[in-house]
């Protein structure tokens, strides 16, 4: 009886060691490569890259950012509504677009105003320094100097889940718009579709 228990413990121990050996050490991966996890229910970083690339390409190609007076268009980042069942940080998409827009030299983004208040409160805070005796009034930024945005970048991400037997599927639909704030008209729109599918094995998870 005792021998049997020892044998069982030994087998479990060996199996445990073998299973532990199946894992991999943490390692860095190249974000620009095709490495990285692909999961059905989430938008993975490669998906954000694909979506951002498509949006940037069509926006720059549309020519809507170009102004005839040579001035750069000022864009505010409004809200990208998350209508998925997952927690999604939409900055992963909007930051990619705003960086591309800035580097294009055709437009510039404002941090003084966004869909959820000011992205950087400093613009407002420094103007309050005019009442602070500590500061030289001449060096304090005056009221009425901030430039208001002319366009707004917004969007929505929608997810539809489908399951059939052991196969599950997620369909993400990302819709982005650039609105001319003077007229309220959408001057650019684009959709990105991401569809993923996975089949569960007969055994396991």
């Amino acid at each position, binding site marked *: 009886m005792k021998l049997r228990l020892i044998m069982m413990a030994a087998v479990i121990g060996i199996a445990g060691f073998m299973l532990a050996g199946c894992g991999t050490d943490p390692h860095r991966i190249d974000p620009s490569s095709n490495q990285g996890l692909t999961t059905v229910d989430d938008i993975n970083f490669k998906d954000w890259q694909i979506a*951002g*690339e498509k949006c940037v390409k069509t926006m*720059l*190609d549309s020519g809507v950012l170009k102004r005839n007076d040579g001035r750069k268009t000022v864009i505010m980042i409004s809200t990208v509504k998350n209508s998925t069942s997952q927690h999604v940080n939409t900055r992963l998409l909007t930051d990619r677009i705003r960086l*591309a827009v800035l*580097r294009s030299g055709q437009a510039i983004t404002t941090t003084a105003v966004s869909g959820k208040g000011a992205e950087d409160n400093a613009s407002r805070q420094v103007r309050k320094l005019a009442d602070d005796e500590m500061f030289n009034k001449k060096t304090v930024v005056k009221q009425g100097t901030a430039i208001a945005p002319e366009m707004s970048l917004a969007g929505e991400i929608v997810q539809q889940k489908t399951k059939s037997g052991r196969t599950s599927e997620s369909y993400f639909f990302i819709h982005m718009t650039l609105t001319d704030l003077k007229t309220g008209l959408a001057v650019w729109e684009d959709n990105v579709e991401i569809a993923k599918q996975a089949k569960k094995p007969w055994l396991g998870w």
Partner: protein
Amino acid sequence: MKMVSFTAICLAAGIALCGCQNTVNSVENKDKVMQPQEVMSKKVSTDRFLRDRLKIIRIDKKVNEAGLLKVQVTALNARTGFFSELWSSLTGGKPYKVLYKFTWLDKDGMVIPTPSMNWLPMSVIPGDEVYFQAVAPNKNCQDFKLSLREYDND
């Protein structure tokens, strides 16, 4: 006799496998209206399999309304025909998946960093043409390079 049977079975299996692969039939207008600006290209192939499967047909460019260079590389998945289809059925290349990346260079040949210098996936059905398109990130971009490789997870 055994040899004949074996050959017949192999042939039947090959035909059956070929039947599993979908290729693309296409139709287009014969008299073209478009007047594309074709770009002379220089190709460097280190992957002969990729070169033979995905043939670069032409490269076109234009300057868009915003003054940015736009390029389009047309490629054809040439994996059609009995043996090609048999081979792609066996190797699982249907549709054939590749990764591509555009690199932009200024007039001095310096790489212009862009937020989108990532390998992006593209699927190509045998017999179909695909278009790799990119818009230059700014007006300083004068030249470009398209890199292609077979899809993998590395």
